[in-house]
Structure formats: C-alpha cells, structure tokens
C-alpha cells in the first residue's frame, strides 16, 4: 500500500500492524517525527511523551505478536490535556496546574490504554476548556494548520490542530458548549459529542459538570466510531454516567439512509450565518437528499436563548468547580503568602487567566443571594424549554442538520478582545449541551481554502445513527479527505 502511514485510517493502520507491514513502534516513531517537525509551528501539544509512547508501542507490539489485542491495539493518539494521565502532567491549559501530575488515569484514558493505544502526548487547549479559539491557554495559542494566522477553534483546539496536521490519527476532546464540534469544523475533522452520560467524566477535569462530555476528534466517522466504542459505557466512578448497553457502532455505519428524516432548523440558517458557510452546508444537505434522505424545515424556537442560558449555567458550575484550586494542596501557590486570604487571592490571581476569572466572577454573581432566582433558576427553566424544542423536533425527524459554526476559522486575535462576539461563535453548538443530546461535526465543502463543518444532532443515545449518516455522506464525498497545505 503506497498511502503514507499518516494518511491511513485507524482500520487500515490496525490491518497494517496485524499484517506485520509495520510495527507499533515504527508507527509511533513516524508520528513523533511529524510532531517534532510540524508542531513547533502549531503549538498543538503541551507535552510530548516520546519515551512512554515507545514503551507503550513495544508493549502493543508484544500483544499483537501473541495474537492478542483489539481494533485499537498499537494505534497512536493524543489526549486533550484535560484528561488526567497517571504520571504525566495534566495542566488543563492553565498555569494553575502547570506542575500537576495526576496519580490516576481518567476513565477515557484508562479504557483507551487498556485497548492498547499509544499516547503520543497531551494537547493544548483553552484554559480549563473555557474558550472557542484556543487563545486562552497558558501555553499560548494554537495555530490552525489550514492557515497559521487563524485559530483552530476551541477549547479542543490542540486536539483538532494535531489531528488535522496528521500528528496523530485521532485525539480525544471534550465538549461543554461545542468544544469538540467547533474546532472539528474549523480544522476539517469529524468530531462527536456523545449524549450526556454516555462517556464517563471521571478524571476529566470539570468545567461545567452538567454539560461536559468527552469524545473523539478524528478524520472520519468510521475512525470516530472506533474510538467512541472504546470509551463509551457506564462507569461506577461517575454517578451521571448512564448504565445502558452501548451498541456496536461499526455494525450500522453502512446502513442505508433512504427515507431518513432530516430536520433543518430555520433558526440555524438565519442572520449571523456567513452566506458562504451556508452554501457549503446546504450543499452537504443536498448530498444527503441525493442519498435518499428527506429534509423538512423545523423550528427550534428557543435557539436564541441558548447562548445566554449557557453563560449562566456554565459559569455558575465553573465558579464552584474551580474553587478547589486554592494553592493549598496542589497546583500553583503564590510566593510567601502572608496569611490565608493572601494565599487564596494571589494564588488564584496568578494561577488563572483572564477568561477563567471572568467566568468565575459571572458564576459567583449568578449564584449569589438575591440573584440566584433571577439568573440561575431562570437559566434552568430556559434549559427545560430548549430541551422541549428538541423533544418536539425529534418526534418528527430522525436527525437535525445545520452549520456547526457561523463562520470559518477566524484570525488570531480577531475576537479575543470581545467576549460576547466570541461566545456567539458557539451559537449552534451550545443547545445540544444544554439538552444533553449527541451531536457531531463533519466536514462540508471548504470555503476559500478553509474547512466548514456540517453539524448533525440526534436524539438521546442516537450516536450510532449520527455516525451512520456521517459515514454514508463521507462515502459519497471527499471533503473529509482534504489535507492542510504542508501536512501531506
């Protein structure tokens, strides 16, 4: 096979390993070489684990030699630096955790480790996953492989840039308001945010607990399905994980989509959507129709409330989740604190960046006595209304399709000074988190050399359906096969 290793799918790589065409060590070495060559221009990784990766690759080779192992054994990947990895620094993109080494693995990490994957490194990210551009990281911004002057999206921007630049065949990410889907869209990848509760949050550093979900960023729905298969499922360490069987995602990827009812929410195609992005998304939808799907216009009437609702709920939870970073037990501690207040104030002032502080302040405010009812409780009510919109919609349609992001990748610094404009870049992704629904982004036709994302949303636990629709579309198109310049 003449395809270079870094252009092969997970299935092709696994087949190559089993056929002894190459070893896991050779595969890891190949990717580590690309990381060394290309990542300095991208800043997509905060930690590279060459030595550990080679050791893990050798172990995988030994397993494979015994005829042991599964579909992911020996395959390299990158974990977002929000997942705790035993013995390897987990910074969460923050100065606060610059020196933090977790004594345990996140469930996502542990399951992928048990499957025999080889961790190449930890991906850069917006600080504590708060951001849509990867500009809030303590380790500096990540650049988009399609155009280094542009952002890769966020908060899983490092994961997205790394996979787009072929520094790993797949990476993990997390999605609180679009943090898998928006960077997938801006970098030309396929990423899925599962149903809330489908993937364990144990060891995944919390931003907003009721919204956070982990999932893969990959180059195809097929690859995403393989990784999701390995991480999905009940975990007794996470009370919010759901104890329900996980379907065999690969088994239904090839199912036909004739007669599939696709809802097109009119609110997702209105003002604010870049006309070129709109055209690209409509082209992808036309392709779905060509494959036999029926489209129907629907309404998600409370769409405009999603962003304001989110910016009450998420900061409220984050203000509490981040209280543990107090300089007492681990993490950043200021020099020579003169008393307890000084220890708290300076450790947190120095350890957190501006966006994190902004959200802690907002969250503290909306939970305060006298404001709780007006903000937090009201936001919970709106969350119900948004969920109701989807419940009604899914009584009529099988999936909902629309744009992932209103624009293609924007320039570094373009929105950094204006939080509200930045927040609005998540206008199409946030609702799925508020409702807890599965949603994914996959490439549509690029615009002006920049990727565009098509978003698919499904009913609760309908990941198999989403992956199936995405896979059929990818079988019929080549948008997801485009490679950023210089990354061939």
């Amino acid at each position, binding site marked *: 096979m003449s395809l270079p290793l870094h252009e092969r799918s997970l299935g092709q790589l696994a087949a190559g390993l089993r056929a002894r065409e190459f070893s896991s060590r050779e595969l890891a070495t190949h990717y580590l070489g690309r990381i060394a060559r290309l990542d300095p221009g991208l800043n997509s990784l905060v930690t590279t684990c060459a030595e550990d990766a080679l050791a893990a690759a050798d172990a995988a080779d030994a397993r494979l030699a015994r005829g042991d192992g599964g579909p992911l054994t020996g395959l390299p990947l990158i974990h977002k630096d929000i997942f705790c990895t035993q013995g390897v620094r987990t910074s969460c993109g923050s100065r606060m955790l610059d020196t933090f080494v977790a004594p345990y693995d996140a469930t996502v990490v542990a399951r992928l480790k048990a499957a025999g994957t080889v961790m190449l490194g930890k991906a850069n990210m917006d600080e504590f996953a708060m951001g849509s551009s990867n500009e809030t990281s303590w380790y500096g911004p990540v650049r988009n492989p399609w155009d280094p002057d542009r952002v890769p999206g966020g908060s899983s921007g490092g994961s997205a840039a790394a996979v787009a630049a072929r520094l790993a065949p797949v990476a993990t990410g997390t999605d609180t308001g679009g943090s898998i889907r928006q960077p997938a869209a801006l970098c030309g990848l396929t990423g899925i945010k599962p149903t809330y509760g489908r993937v364990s949050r144990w060891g995944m550093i919390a931003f907003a*607990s009721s919204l956070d979900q982990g999932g893969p960023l990959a180059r195809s729905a097929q690859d995403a399905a393989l990784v999701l298969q390995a991480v999905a499922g009940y975990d007794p360490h996470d009370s919010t994980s759901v104890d329900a069987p996980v379907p065999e995602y690969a088994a239904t990827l090839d199912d036909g989509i004739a007669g599939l009812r696709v809802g097109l929410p009119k609110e997702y195609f209105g003002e604010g959507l870049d006309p070129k992005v709109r055209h690209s998304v409509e082209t992808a939808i036309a392709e779905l129709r060509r494959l036999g799907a029926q489209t129907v216009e629907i309404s998600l009437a409370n769409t405009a409330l999603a962003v304001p609702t989110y910016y009450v709920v998420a900061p409220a939870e984050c203000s509490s989740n981040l209280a543990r970073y107090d300089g007492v*037990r681990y993490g950043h501690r200021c020099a020579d604190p003169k008393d307890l207040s000084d220890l708290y104030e300076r450790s947190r002032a120095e350890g957190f960046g501006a966006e994190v502080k902004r959200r802690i302040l907002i969250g503290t405010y909306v939970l305060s006595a006298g404001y709780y009812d007006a903000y937090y409780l009201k936001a919970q009510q709106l969350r119900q209304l948004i969920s109701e919109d989807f419940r009604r919609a899914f009584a009529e349609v099988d999936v909902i399709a629309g744009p992932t992001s209103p624009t293609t990748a924007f320039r570094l610094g373009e929105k950094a000074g204006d939080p509200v404009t930045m927040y609005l870049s998540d206008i199409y992704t946030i609702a799925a988190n508020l409702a807890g629904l599965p949603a994914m982004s996959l490439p549509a036709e690029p615009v002006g050399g920049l990727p565009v994302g098509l978003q698919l949303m499904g009913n609760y636990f309908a990941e198999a359906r989403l992956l199936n629709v995405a896979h059929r579309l990818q079988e019929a198109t080549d948008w997801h096969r485009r490679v950023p310049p210089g990354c061939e």
Partner: protein
Amino acid sequence: MEWETVIGLEIHAQLATRSKIFSGAPTAFGAAPNTQACEIDLALPGVLPVLNAEAVRMAVTFGAAIGAAVARRSVFARKNYFYPDLPKGYQISQYEQPIVGRGQVEIALDGGGTKTVGVTRAHLEEDAGKSLHEDFHGMTGIDLNRAGTPLLEIVSEPDMRSPAEAVAYARKIHQLVRYLGICDGNMQEGSFRCDANVSVRRRGSDRLGTRTELKNINSFRFLERAIQYEVERQVDLIENGGAVVQETRLYDPARDETRSMRSKEEANDYRYFPDPDLLPVVLDEDDIAAIVATMPELPDAKRERFERAYQLSAYDAGLLTATRETADYFEAVAQGCGDAKLAANWVMGDLAAALNRDGREIADSPVDAMGLTGLLQRLRDGTLSGKLAKDVFAAMWAGEGSADAIIEARGLRQVSDVGAIEAIVDQVIAANPDQAGQLRAGKDKVMGFLVGQVMKASQGKANPAQVNEILRRKLLDS
C-alpha cells in the same frame, strides 16, 4: 420567672458507615493524618463523588424512627465557601430537599410527664477535614482523614424551654441513633456533636428573641452548662439595657463560659446550588419499606414491651432500655434464667454497680449475659444463697470463670441437706443458750442473730430458708 428560654438544637451525628459518603476511603477514627483520604477526599482535579448507599439507608431509618416523612426525592447541593480543611471549596450537603422531613420525639420531663419536641428536618452531608494549629510553628497543618465522613444533621424546632429539656432531647436523639446502629454516639471523638441555638424572651411574648448559636459542646453536661451560662448572659445583657447580637459563640468548658466566634455580618453567602455531579436520591415505597423492615425495635416500644412482658415498673423498664446493649443483655438474662424480676435486680444492681465502679460499658462487661444467666440459674435452683451469689459474681468479674466453675472450685455449693443443717443448728443452740432461751420465750428479734450464727458456721453454704425453718421447729414447735 420573668424570662423564658427558647432552645433549638442542631445535632451532627456521624454515620457509622465503613467508608466515606462519597468515596471508598475508610472512616475509622484516629489514623495518622491524611492516611485515610483518597483522591476524592483530596479534591484532586477530575474526581467525582459517588453516594454511599449505606448512608442513605441509615438516614431513612432515622426518619422512620422519628415518624418523619422520608423524601421520595432528595437533592444534594453544594455549599460554597473557602477554607483550607474544605478541599473542594464547597461542602456537599442537602439544602432545599433534605432526605428526612418533619418528625418528632417524646422526652421525659424532670417533674414527670412527657413533652413532644419537633424535628424540623434531617439531611445528609459530608464532614470537613481538620486544621491543626498546634503542631506546626507558624503554620497550619491540614488533616483530611475526616473529610467526606458522612453526617446526618438533625435540626430541631425551637421547642425546648430549659437546659434540662435540651439535654433530655439530645439524649433521646443519642439513644435513637445508637439503637438504630447508625452512629456510635461518641461525643469525645466528635461522632455526636450538638450546637445549641439559644434565645430568651419575656414570658408571655410570642416573638422570638435574637438567638446565638453555641458550638464546641462535647458532652451532655457541657450542653447543659453552656446553655445555662448563655441564658444568664443574655438576660444580664438585656436587663442592663443591651441587646443580644446574632452570632456564633464557642463554649469553653475550662472557663465555663461562651465566647464570640463570628458575628452574622461576617457570614458567608454560601451560593447553594444542586450538585450536578450527583443524581437526586429517589426512593420509592418499596425501597423505604425494605429499609424499615431492617430496623430494630426502638426504645419507646421496647420500654412498653418490657413493662408488659416482664412486669417491670416504668422506671425500671426505662433504665433497662436506656441503651440497646443493656436491653439486649437484660432480655437475654431474663429469658435464660426464667425470672425477669431477678434478672432486672441483678442488671440494675450488682452489674450496674460493678460497671460503674470500673468505668466500663455493658458491651465490654467481664460478665456477659450468658455468664450472669448461669449465676442466676444457680441462685434459683438453690445451689447458691444470695450472699454466695454475690461472692461468685465478684469472682466471675475477676475472671475466674463461669459460675459453675467457681462453685465447683471453691466448694460453695449451698447445703440443703436437712441432716447437715440440723447438726449445725444444734451446735449453735448449744453455744448460745441465752439467745435460744429468749427465742423460746417468744422474742422473735433474736431469730436473725441465730440464723446469722448458723450461716457463719456453715461458711455461708447453708440454705437460709431451711435454717429458719429448722430453728423454728427446734425452739418454738417443741
């Protein structure tokens, strides 16, 4: 009296689970600092709480025991504040939807009669760690062993009107949680903590006065004294034209006074909100019924049954049911020896005295229920006299073995052989002709003296009833 005291108590009962409320770390007391704190208790990044089902079961039994409605749905909330021994920066507690709703208990009043005290609610929460200020010069140590220990916070209505009532209520709750086996009740180790809300008002007023909250009370005696002190302080203050400030006050047992700790103006805004990491606790009728079915008999029911079944006075039944251990002990002995009255006398008499003398709990009494049963059987079948039984009991207490073994080893078997006793009686009559003459003349008072002489001569082994009978026969009937 011109002033009326109004008291409400908040009791924190540490639940006797093996592991913590949201982690698998052990809860045992007294381990080296931070050896019983896992990643969850340390609040490392990425960890999540998982509710201990045993803590829920225990809370439900308490709710059932006070006749409260157990919530079909209760919710854990986060109470947010910064403190070094609070690792997450919030305490997981229950706020708007506690697991146990309104209930009540009956307390016995000093002057006789009973009073019903309302329990507003009881909720589950986690304990914080400890700050150690003494051990490190110029620094504070943090021990997180206690962090995450399950607590049931039991909040009363302001129904108590005197320190004695407050103590009676606290004792009642203490007795209940120990009966239920949900708390070891150890106040010294902090397993059972009482905070008292105290206010005073002019008698006849229907408005509550400003209250203070008393903390750091680790015995029932201190509870009574702390409230007593505080009431006097508040009355003095008001009578001298001052006003009570709503604040938290610490009781100092060494000085027997309360001191201001923090005033309400400095109070935190705790920013409670439902904990998104934990699902609501949902219990249906069957869940609750299954838990209630595992509950032991409660003290009030047991006391009434003892009165009926064993023909005990209310007072005796109360003493014998004070703790579950005492009640179980008594009941085993009563059934084993077949004489409840005898068992009650021994448990409340010799046994209680010995326990008291040695400062022991009945659970680690050197003479267990089976041992005492063995002794009382020998008393009932006439093998031992009452006097000998006391000696045997003392020997059993000293660890010399069972009643039968001691009787055997010491040759203490009571002499009931008429011939042998007659021989001793004859000797005693011969040796005490004056007294024998007086008895013959109808002076009954010397009977006791003569019986005593016979008992002495037999080294206590003679059956006293027989001695009596034989003396009468020989001196009066002849």
